């Protein structure tokens, strides 16, 4: 356990910093520091172009093994990349679902054909992915999947019917991974399949969900006889839950660092405003600024422990608290931002409902403690899996 980086790693840091300085400029200048959570709808086209620029430089999927186009970068290097990316103002990545979720999932569970078919597009920053997990009647009960998939012998394809919800970037994505029930008689975690579905087809309809922010980061996605190829199922029919859970494990990896860099830039802005408008003179605000700073630093070391820990992908304690920890921290930051702004927090940038970055942060972070497993579900998981306390009984339904 030590903090300092090796000389080799410091060399890598210079390399990243230099590339960012030389490339995140000119046409990409406007997207610096943009596109974070709650700002995801900004500059999407430009950020797509940036994704390809990154790929050209060899800076997408750096943690993937070299055979799949990655750099096989060490944890240290991934940490460094994220730090330098953020320091340079690298915009929110539109390719992150493919890079951090689909890619690792396919590398771990996919067939050779699937890897060949999908990894290059992700790696090149040209094919974006979204996720089809939650369903309206399921909510936190993720395994309560009603979307159905059956294999249609005539077409030689899987046919999907059902509805997913809370799918971000659905209208920007080329593909969606969808968990669907392959065995209509099954219930819960059994009888599910994990499908790779092309979005641009007649059977797929996307409906944005208007949110409290006035924006629609989330969508409903309807599958009406949507199809995918026979070999677009990861693993076997019935393996869907296992694959999906593995994928959720990947969610808690290096990608957390990128998130934290965005958090840092938000906190920096809050501090800047507090200094400017005098809020920083208020001792109660000072306590909370310090608390936010400490909390974010802790988040970083939580991540470091998580990444340095067991390589079997099993969830350690620090990984089990991760979602609950960051979502609560981020929500508190949103409130702190408003209290730093004071009465001004109530005034919008413009008609009809144009939020500034901090207002957007405040409102959007209310979703953080809900999506991807509510704080309540997280606490169940911690108590049951990490502390070995009895499982919450299911109802009779």
């Amino acid at each position, binding site marked *: 356990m030590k903090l300092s980086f090796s000389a080799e790693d410091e060399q890598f840091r210079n390399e990243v910093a230099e590339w960012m300085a030389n490339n995140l400029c000119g046409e990409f200048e406007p997207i610096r520091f943009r596109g974070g959570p709650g700002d995801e709808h900004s500059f999407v086209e430009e950020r797509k172009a940036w994704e390809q620029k990154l790929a050209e430089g060899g800076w997408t999927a750096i943690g993937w093994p070299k055979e799949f186009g990655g750099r096989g970068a060490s944890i240290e290097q991934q940490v460094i990349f994220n730090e330098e990316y953020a320091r340079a103002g690298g915009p929110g990545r539109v390719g992150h679902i493919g890079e951090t979720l689909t890619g690792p999932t396919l590398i771990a569970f996919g067939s050779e054909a699937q890897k060949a078919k999908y990894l290059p597009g992700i790696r090149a920053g040209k094919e974006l992915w979204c996720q089809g997990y939650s369903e309206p009647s399921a909510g936190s009960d993720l395994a309560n999947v009603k979307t159905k998939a059956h294999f249609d012998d005539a077409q030689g394809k899987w046919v999907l019917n059902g509805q997913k919800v809370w799918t971000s970037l659905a209208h920007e994505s080329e593909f969606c991974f969808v968990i669907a029930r392959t065995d209509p008689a099954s219930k819960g975690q059994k009888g599910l399949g994990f499908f790779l579905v092309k979005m641009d087809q007649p059977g797929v309809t996307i409906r944005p969900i208007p949110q409290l922010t006035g924006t629609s980061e989330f969508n409903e996605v309807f599958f009406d006889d949507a199809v995918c190829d026979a070999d677009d199922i990861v693993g076997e029919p019935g393996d869907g839950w296992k694959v999906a859970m593995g994928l959720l494990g990947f969610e808690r990896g290096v990608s957390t660092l990128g998130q934290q860099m965005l958090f840092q830039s938000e906190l920096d802005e809050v501090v800047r405003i507090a200094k400017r408008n005098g809020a920083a003179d208020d001792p109660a605000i000072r306590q909370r600024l310090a608390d936010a700073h400490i909390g974010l630093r802790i988040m970083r070391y939580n991540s470091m422990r998580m990444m340095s820990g067991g390589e079997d992908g099993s969830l350690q304690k620090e990984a089990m608290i991760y979602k609950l920890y960051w979502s609560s921290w981020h929500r508190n930051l949103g409130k702190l931002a408003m209290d730093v702004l004071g009465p001004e927090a*109530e005034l919008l940038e413009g008609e009809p409902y144009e939020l500034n970055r901090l207002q957007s942060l405040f409102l959007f972070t209310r979703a953080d403690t809900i999506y991807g497993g509510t704080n309540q579900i997280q*606490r169940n998981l911690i108590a049951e899996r990490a502390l070995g306390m009895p499982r919450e009984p299911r109802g009779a339904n």
Partner: protein
Amino acid sequence: MEFSFTDEQTMIFDTAEAFLGEVAEVASIRKSMETNTGYDPSAWDRLCQEMYWQAILIPEDNDGLGLGAVELVGILERMGKKLYNGPFASSAAVTLALAKWGSGDQKSTYFARLMAGESATIAVIDQARAWSAEGVSAQAVQTDEGLRISGKYRFVQHGHTANLILVAARAPGSSGQDGVGLFLIDADAEGVIRKRVPTMDQTRPLAEVQLESVLVQPEQCLGCVGNSAPALAQLLDIQAILVTAEQLGGAQASLDMTVDYLQERVQFGRTIASFQAVKHKCADMMLKVEASRSIVYYAACVIDEWLSDRYDANQLAEAASMAKAYSSDAFFFVAGCGIQLFGGVGITEEYDIQLYFKRAKATETFLGGGAAHRERVAQMLLAGEC
């Protein structure tokens, strides 16, 4: 001493509940919040004509209803439940100011206008972080024709539609507690420019009001020009207490709609309401709602005592700051928990809980949040003033 409602009060509140159920259902609030006025003028007309609520605090001698602050607060609580967005609270605050400090002539003039359905509001600050005499920046300059007031006011509730604006302004060169006066301005007077500004809480229209050398006559001065800092503090305290009544109602409604939803929504084969952690969260929410109720109605009683000069400005200040600190935090907590317990749908535009959450945020900051009011209580406590 008596801490329960009279039968008459209960009847008034039942009527209020029924009337608001008619004119202020969420659908109509949502519709009206997107209009230019930000509220439904026809509902306001009905309120004035059928309910005559604008006359609650106007003495019977002035042809008002001669009721008290408890009745007012009970109605405001029910308005808060519905997120009612008309200019009632701000008008009531001006009414209270007139009742306390108005001259006989001012009372007859302005009470008559208010009873006829005109609305009123209060404009105090522009840039300051805190609502107080120190924050008053508009200037009242003595000229040959009379005082002329110039300055910008922000965070003015219904400032774009109110007929009457009670403004604070100070003598040139003065600062702090000195030189402050309170003036009753006609919104259509020359030099009054106002515009609604977009707000995070869409149910609580705010405006910027610019006065450009607006002429006021002596009969428009409320109380003693130049010496009104104490009155302004009391006026802000009154206004804060009225806000807490709306907060209480909003918190109660947030709790109610959350529990209703939890009782219906099934997850893991059980209603969400059957999960103990959820139940306990709701219990904590109810505790805060009930505690808020206790302090808000106490504060209402204090207004009554203060109106009849039995309680002084300190007692009013303590009550206002206690109520505002507690109720602001309580409403924010309850509405925030509400969104969380609604889950995914809680953050959609379609569900109402987010409107309550925004209302909680807006009313928390308005007139000072929990920390500011607690600091004020601390000062009184440490000075032995409460």
